[in-house]
């Protein structure tokens, strides 16, 4: 077991499973004592004395905690192991090539017709270019009920749906080398705007871009080996609810085609993407909430990990990279931003950008 203490808890990682077990401080105390061989009854008695709670309550909590560890963290087999990708041919007869240039590199992407094409082609459209000799070739196709992504013939993604495959493809197309971590976040001016789907981060990203803040990414913040933020030059996806807020700043946006995704009308906005990687200066978990005001609050490292658990993230599964990721997280300022007023939220992020330490 790999152990990483953080400010208000402990991160435990099974070497055989891609996931972080996040223990709050009380669970951390129980873990330390239980691993030393102290009995559940003694741990509970200690907690009861320290906190002035009933012994029965402490005992129930400690027992439940240990049982949950035995079922997952310490179970003989990891919680879930994905089967190997289905053995299918890389090429598919109805695939169409899409040639484009990303960060100066010529690429050819073969996209299966239908859902795969519809999901991915609009994201590549602004990067379309004539290519004679591609440096990289990708294939995205369905097979055995999955959506598979291949890079130069090797399977790099085995996803449930086209959206997952699109994510893997765009990350691979933009990355220089294997990333250290990826957060479900937008990136503007070195500030990462994290959050779950419908949290308002794309709208805020677009608004900041309209005010001249350098744009890095919309929904996938790829961090390289030095935890620098990789520019992702693909269009932002904006749902109809945010169009009135954006149209005035990007006149051409109102003329862009409308697509249907997951029951919503959406449009794509082509970004003016920053040319080079950036140092991350803050991580902000964004949440648009009508009628709730606009406020910024600091977050601990542990609470940031809980927020990442809800929004989505990936870290290379090695103890060295996980330790470096947690050290990076501890070094950068971390916040939650709840907003209902877009200009006020823009002002807060601009302020964070302006006050960010310069390398």
């Amino acid at each position, binding site marked *: 077991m790999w152990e990483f203490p953080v400010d*208000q808890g402990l991160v435990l990682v099974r070497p055989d499973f*891609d*996931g*972080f*077990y*996040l*223990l*709050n*401080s*009380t*669970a*951390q*105390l*129980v873990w*330390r*004592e239980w691993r030393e061989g102290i009995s559940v009854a003694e741990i509970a008695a200690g*907690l009861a*004395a*320290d*906190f*002035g*709670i009933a012994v029965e309550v402490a005992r129930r*909590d*400690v027992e439940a*905690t240990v049982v*949950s*560890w035995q079922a*997952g*963290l310490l179970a003989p087999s990891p*919680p879930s192991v994905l089967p190997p990708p289905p053995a299918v041919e890389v090429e598919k007869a109805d695939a169409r090539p899409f040639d484009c240039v990303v960060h100066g590199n010529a690429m050819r992407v073969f996209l299966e017709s239908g859902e795969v094409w519809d999901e991915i082609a609009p994201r590549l459209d602004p990067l379309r270019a004539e290519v004679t000799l591609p440096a990289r070739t990708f294939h995205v196709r369905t097979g055995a009920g999955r959506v598979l992504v291949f890079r130069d013939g090797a399977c790099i*993604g085995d*996803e*449930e749906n086209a*959206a*997952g*495959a*699109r*994510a*893997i493809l765009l*990350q691979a197309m933009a990355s220089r080398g294997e990333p250290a971590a*990826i*957060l*479900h976040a937008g990136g503007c001016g070195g500030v990462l705007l994290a*959050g*779950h*789907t419908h949290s308002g981060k794309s709208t805020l990203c677009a608004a900041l871009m309209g005010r001249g803040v350098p744009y890095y990414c919309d*929904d*996938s*913040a790829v961090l390289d080996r030095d935890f620098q933020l990789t520019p992702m030059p693909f269009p932002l996806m904006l749902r109809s609810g945010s169009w009135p807020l954006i149209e005035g700043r990007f006149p051409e946006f109102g003329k862009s085609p409308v697509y249907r995704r997951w029951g919503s009308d959406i449009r794509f906005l082509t970004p003016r993407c920053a040319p080079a990687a950036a140092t991350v200066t803050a991580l902000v978990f964004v949440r648009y909430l009508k009628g709730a005001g606009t406020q910024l609050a600091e977050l601990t490292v542990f609470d940031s*990990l*809980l927020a*990442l*658990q*809800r*929004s*989505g*993230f*990936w*870290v290379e*599964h090695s103890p060295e990279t996980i330790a470096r990721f947690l050290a990076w997280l501890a070094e950068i300022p971390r916040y939650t931003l709840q907003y209902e007023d877009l200009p006020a939220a823009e002002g807060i992020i601009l302020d964070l950008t302006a006050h960010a330490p310069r390398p």
Partner: protein
Amino acid sequence: MKNENNQPPEDGKSDRREMLQKLGRFAAYAAPFTILAMTKKADAATGHGPGRRG
């Protein structure tokens, strides 16, 4: 409530004392919890399928 005397344990377990000092920010007992955060590249772009309690 938290141990208001804030005295070191008599059995001299420095680890426990250290941990209790760390817990000192809590005015009241916080039940222990463990949450599993799955790490997956596709989720880091779509937000689908986040972790679970475990």
